[in-house]
């Protein structure tokens, strides 16, 4: 039902737009090797969609979907994917992030392996950027103390 007196217009519009923005961000990440963009830009858009959800629906709604702990976890996972692919290339007797060496374990030709490696790195970068951007916004807007902690302290 309509809650009278709340800013219902911005809320409804952002509610409808956020899933499409998130899908667009994933599109930018996944097609990074054909079109402009890539991990960083897509991560920024994904983070921006989360920020939009935060400023329109408030802390509780976002915390239910994507809490700060998960954001920290995601930023670590993103860096792990990136550096993991890099070290995998080192183990396969190439340089750091020398994707074409990945063909030895992927059973495809080197050019295709390079494309897949770039895709993996971009997914990692996207996750890391999104999570870090979101947690920076989180910290700024809540003053570094999440409302849950305050409730527990009381």
């Amino acid at each position, binding site marked *: 039902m309509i809650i009278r007196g709340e*800013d219902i*217009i*911005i809320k409804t*519009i952002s509610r409808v*737009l956020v899933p499409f923005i998130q899908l667009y961000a994933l599109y930018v990440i996944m097609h990074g090797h054909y079109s402009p963009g890539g991990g960083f830009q897509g991560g920024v858009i994904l983070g921006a969609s989360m920020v939009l959800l935060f400023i329109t629906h408030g802390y509780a709604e976002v915390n239910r979907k994507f809490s700060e702990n998960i954001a920290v976890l995601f930023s670590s996972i993103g860096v792990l994917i990136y550096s993991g692919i890099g070290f995998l290339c080192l183990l396969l007797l190439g340089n750091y992030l020398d994707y074409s060496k990945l063909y030895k374990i992927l059973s495809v030709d080197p050019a295709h392996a390079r494309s897949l490696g770039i895709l993996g790195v971009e997914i990692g970068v996207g996750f890391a950027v999104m999570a870090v951007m979101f947690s920076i916004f989180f910290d700024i807007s809540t003053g570094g103390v999440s409302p849950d902690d305050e409730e527990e302290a009381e």
Partner: protein
Amino acid sequence: MMSVMTIVSVLFILGGLFFFTTATIGLIRFPDFFTRLHATGKGDTLAVFLSLLGLALYEGFSLTGLKIVIIAIFMFIAQPTATHAISKAGLRFGLKPWMREEDRK
């Protein structure tokens, strides 16, 4: 030799440029914040819509043209909402709307 489609798209883009110009003049000339929002909120919406539609027609009926139409629809939804958001913040902030002298009494 220009095709009919090109001429139509040129007309659309010129229309978009005209409304961009009037919106800009309105933004400069109008007396206060709320009246300026009238100019940007309405003018820019139709101007962007017309110019993007013209560019999409010039591109032809392909996936790229459809993507341009998606941007146009997005602007169509987002621009009034952004206008509403700023004007609401201005009103809550305490900006007083400009009135004519005779209306103030």
